[in-house]
Every structure is written in structure tokens, then in C-alpha cells.
């Protein structure tokens, strides 16, 4: 097992893409453990890693987001958020957080969110007199809401792997999403007061009404998805295609979409989703090899030899996931650790939906933590600020997310509020 981790770390450090590092280290481990003849199975595992109906939601939700983005929805969301909170001190920082929350409601991906919103909001915040590194950190950490507020690609994958209800997981993400948004908003106001960020004039009532009207259709998308699923019109997987259809309709109604833009979005989405699906594909090799060698059992036994107290196990599990989250991205972590996670869920006796929410929060927050925090990299690249400076600004913000995580882990009623309320 250690040979796998050494190889994997070595490949990662030398710049081999994560997907290939997983595949090569997994295959090498298969040979090293004397099961080389099973390597003929690996191409089938690669296909199996992609061959799941629900994974179609990845390209489809990405496509819906991309169409909304080229269709001008992103800009409209920002204008709408400005109309609501833009007049407060350091208003643009609150606008950023609120925009992230709304955007999360139509996008399932944190990186899509950071890229789409960052390019508009980081310069606007800088223009309003905020340090660019702070602006970048705020975008990076707010984007964590993308896969927490439904829809969420990470939750879909968790549901696929664990068998937990994806619809329930989606609902369970609402409260932590609100928690993170509120925490960040409080921090942003405090920071604006402390550093004396400037104030921009309030928009007129007419302007605000116009902004609301222009954004409303986009904000209705999550509602349409939820109602459509509940009414039995489509399945959660098909909902992703419906989201695309809806994005096309509002894009053409507003005349922001052209056929060329749609065509480009289709191709761009295929390219981006391939980079995600190739990771699930390669991770499927690793999980196959791990199962053959009974690695999950070994890790679980090692952890249990430390403690058998459920609370301690929960704490250890959180630390374990956060550490993995520092180096790996969410999908790989979920695929690699799911067999272990299932064992621990049974041991702790936590509700499967709450447990899923805790795990997803954990791995998603990891995207904004150093050293490997893809969101920090994106925001730093957009802002032109060095990653180190962005990281320093991100630390208190990540702290807020961890606080929310602790609440979700300790108080079942918080994450389960919406799932039980709507049943």
C-alpha cells in the first residue's frame, strides 16, 4: 500500500496530471502485489468509471452553467446582488458572496463558479479599493458553496458511490450553504468597517426592479428542478438535461445566446467534463486494486486501533479527509475512500444523509485549502496576486467554513432540516 502512495505522491509532485498519477500508481501497485495478470481488467474498469447514467449530469450541469454564463446570466446575477447589498460599506465584497450563493444554485461545480464569477468580481472589488489578494480569497472560498448548495456534482458522485439518496443530499446542502454565506457576509462587513472600505451609492428603485426582473428567470432554475423532480416529471439525472433546455430557452429569449455560442459551449463542456470523468475513470482502477488488496479494511483497522469512541472516530475521519483534501480533489477522494467511509458510517451510526453532507463539506472545503487548493490557484491567476498572499487572506475565511462543518457534524437537525421538512 505504501508503494502506491509513494508512487502517487512522486508523480503528483513532478507535475503528472492527477488522473494519470492515479492510473499509473494504481497499475504499478497491481503489478507489485503480484496480480499483474489482472491488468487486462483495467481498461474495463476505466469504462466502468464513466459508464454510469448519473454521471451524465456532470457534462449537463456544466453545460447549463456555461450556457447561462455566455447567455449573460452571470453578469445579471452580479447586478442583482448589487441591487440588494451593493450600497453597504465595502458593498462589492457582500455582492461577491451573495452572487456566489445564487450562482451555486445553478451550477454544480466550484471551479466553474470561481472562474465565472472571479473574472467579473475580483476586478470590481479591487476597483472599490479592496486589496486584490483579499478579493481573490473571498471568491475562492465563496466558490466552495457551488458544490454545497444544490445542484452539486460532488453530491451526485457521493450518492452514486454510497447509495444515499441524491435528492436528500441536495436538500441537506441548503443549510450549510446558508451557514457559509452568512458567516462570510459577517466577516466581510467586519472587515469593511475595520479597513474602511468605501461605500457606493444605492441604486434607484427603478434600477433595482429592473435588475430583479432580469435575473429572476435564472434564479427560478433551482426551483424548477426541485418541483420537476418532486412532481415525477423527470428523474434527478434527467433534471440536468432539463436545466440545459431551460438555459437555452432563457438564453434565446433574452437574445444573449447565438447558435455559435451554443456550439462553442457544447465543445468546451465536453473538454472540461472529460478532465473530470478521466479522474473518475482512473480512480476506478485504484479502487479496484485497493479492493483486491483489501486496503480499506487495513486503513479502517488501523484507525480503530487508535480509538473506538464514535466521536473520536468522527474527529479522526474529519482530519483524515481534510488532510487528503489538501492534496487531492473531491472526486478522487470520494472514490478512493468510499469503502472506508461506509465502514465508519456504520460504526458511528450517523444518518447516511448527514454523514454524506459532512463528507462532502469536508472534501469541498479542501479545495480552498493549501497546498493544493484549486480554487486558490484560479483566484490567484485571475487576480494576478501571488498564491501565498491569497492563502493568507483565505485562512480566516476557511476557518468560517470549518466552523460550519463542525456544526453540521455535531447537530444532525441542521443538515437534516430540509430533507425531513420536505418529506
Amino acid at each position, binding site marked *: 500500500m505504501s508503494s502506491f502512495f509513494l508512487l502517487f505522491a512522486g508523480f503528483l509532485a513532478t507535475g503528472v496530471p492527477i488522473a494519470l498519477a492515479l492510473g499509473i500508481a494504481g497499475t504499478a501497485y497491481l503489478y507489485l502485489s503480484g496480480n499483474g495478470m489482472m491488468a487486462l481488467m483495467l481498461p474495463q474498469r476505466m469504462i466502468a468509471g464513466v459508464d454510469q447514467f448519473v454521471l451524465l449530469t456532470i457534462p449537463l450541469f456544466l453545460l447549463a452553467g456555461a450556457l447561462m454564463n455566455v447567455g449573460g446570466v452571470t453578469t445579471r446575477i452580479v447586478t442583482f446582488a448589487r441591487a440588494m447589498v451593493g450600497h453597504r460599506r465595502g458593498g462589492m465584497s457582500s455582492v461577491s458572496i451573495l452572487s456566489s450563493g445564487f450562482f451555486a444554485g445553478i451550477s454544480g461545480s466550484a471551479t466553474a463558479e470561481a472562474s465565472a464569477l472571479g473574472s467579473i468580481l475580483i476586478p470590481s472589488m479591487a476597483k472599490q479599493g479592496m486589496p486584490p489578494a483579499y478579493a481573490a480569497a473571498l471568491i475562492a472560498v465563496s466558490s466552495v458553496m457551488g458544490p454545497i448548495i444544490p445542484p452539486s456534482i460532488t453530491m451526485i458522485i457521493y450518492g452514486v458511490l454510497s447509495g444515499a439518496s441524491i435528492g436528500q443530499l441536495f436538500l441537506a446542502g441548503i443549510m450549510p450553504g446558508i451557514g457559509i454565506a452568512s458567516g462570510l457576509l459577517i466577516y466581510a462587513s467586519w472587515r469593511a468597517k475595520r479597513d474602511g472600505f468605501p461605500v457606493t451609492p444605492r441604486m434607484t428603485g427603478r434600477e433595482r426592479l429592473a435588475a430583479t426582473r432580469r435575473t429572476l428567470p435564472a434564479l427560478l432554475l433551482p426551483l424548477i428542478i426541485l418541483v420537476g423532480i418532486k412532481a415525477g416529471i423527470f428523474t434527478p439525472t434527467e433534471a440536468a438535461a432539463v436545466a440545459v433546455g431551460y438555459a437555452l430557452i432563457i438564453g434565446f429569449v433574452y437574445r444573449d445566446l447565438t447558435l455559435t455560442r451554443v456550439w462553442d459551449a457544447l465543445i468546451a463542456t465536453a473538454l*472540461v467534463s472529460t478532465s473530470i470523468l478521466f479522474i473518475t475513470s482512473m480512480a476506478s482502477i485504484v479502487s479496484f486494486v485497493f479492493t483486491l488488496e483489501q486496503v480499506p479494511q487495513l486503513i479502517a483497522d488501523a484507525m480503530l486501533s487508535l480509538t473506538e469512541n464514535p466521536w473520536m472516530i468522527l474527529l479522526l475521519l474529519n482530519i483524515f479527509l481534510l488532510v487528503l483534501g489538501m492534496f487531492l480533489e473531491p472526486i478522487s477522494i470520494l472514490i478512493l475512500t468510499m469503502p472506508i467511509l461506509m465502514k465508519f458510517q456504520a460504526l458511528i451510526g450517523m444518518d447516511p444523509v448527514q454523514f454524506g453532507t459532512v463528507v462532502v463539506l469536508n472534501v469541498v472545503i479542501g479545495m480552498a485549502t493549501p497546498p493544493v487548493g484549486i480554487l486558490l490557484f484560479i483566484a490567484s491567476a485571475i487576480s494576478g496576486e501571488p498564491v501565498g498572499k491569497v492563502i493568507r487572506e483565505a485562512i480566516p475565511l476557511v476557518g468560517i467554513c470549518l466552523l460550519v462543518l463542525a456544526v453540521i457534524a455535531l447537530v444532525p437537525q441542521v443538515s437534516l432540516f430540509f430533507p425531513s421538512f420536505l418529506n
Partner: protein
Amino acid sequence: MQDRTGPLARFVTGYVWLVRTLAGVSMLLIVAIMLAQVFWRYILGGSLIWAEELCRYLLIWQTFLVLGLAFSKGEFVALEFVPSLLNPRLRWLLKAVMAVPIVVFLGLMAWYGWDFASRFDRQTIPALDFIWTALSGEALGLSIRWVYVSVTVGLALLALHVLADLAVSFRRQVVDNLEDTASDADRTSAGTT
């Protein structure tokens, strides 16, 4: 790569056009089939029994087919921890060294994929059989091999892209000792969750 009108350049342009077009068409088909399925079931009370399976196969082909292109566009997430410490020349060298295990792995898997796929000639693609039976009264009988072979095609193309990227960056990074054209921003903006 200087001559943009030579046969190689034209071939590359044609290849990129083809892969992009196939990817776009595949995405479009997936959306159309899934929406049609919802329509058929909810409005017409029937069902397209092949819809789910066909969408999965489209996704498989699409994923593997565009791997190479996605790699060259810098969509693959990589950490670049050691490379960021090196000058362009050494960085190229490291990339060349790491290309060895990558290409060996891809080549091996492409070969095994072919071997594995060739064992299932008798297994047909049910979705296409359903469609064909509905159209002509007879099953199509197309082998599942045509789905499984996507791994071989995709990984082989990816290996070619890895090698081509090395060749293309050789002049800039090694001869001129300049930064590679793909900036870190491009490398990290790849989409993950």
C-alpha cells in the same frame, strides 16, 4: 510547426476539427435524447427503452475521444510542485522523463483495451438492437466491441498528444530557455468540482 500550410499542419487542423465536431454532436445528442425521453414518458406515456443506455455509450466515447485534445488545452489538473522550482530547460527535461511512464502506461492500457474488447464480439449493443428492431424488425447485431474500443482510441490519441506537446515545446523551452506557452492560469483553470 512553422509551416502552417504543410500537409502535417493541415492534417492536425482536420483532426482537431473532427474531434471537436464529434464532441459537440455527442453533447447535443445526449441533451436531445434525454429531453426526448422525458417528453415520451411524461407527455406520451411511453418510453424510449434504449435512451439511458445510448446516452451512457455516447458519454463513454465522448470522454475518451477528447482526452488528447483536453490534455493539450491544459484541462488536466496537475500540481506542478517540482516543475515550478525549475528553469524552462530543466522543466522540459523533467516533462520528457515523466512522459516515459505516461506513454508506457497509456500504450499498455490501449493494447489491453483492444485485447479485452476483442473478446466480446458475440456481445451486441442492446440499445442499437432495440432501435433497429423497431425500425426494421431485426436486431442490428453490432458488437459491443465498438463501445469498448473507445478506450484504445482515446488512450492512444492521448499518448500522441503527450509526445506532440513535448515536441512542440522543445524549441521554446530547451533551445530558447523560455516559459512554456501554457501559463499556470490555463493549467489550473481546469474544471473539477
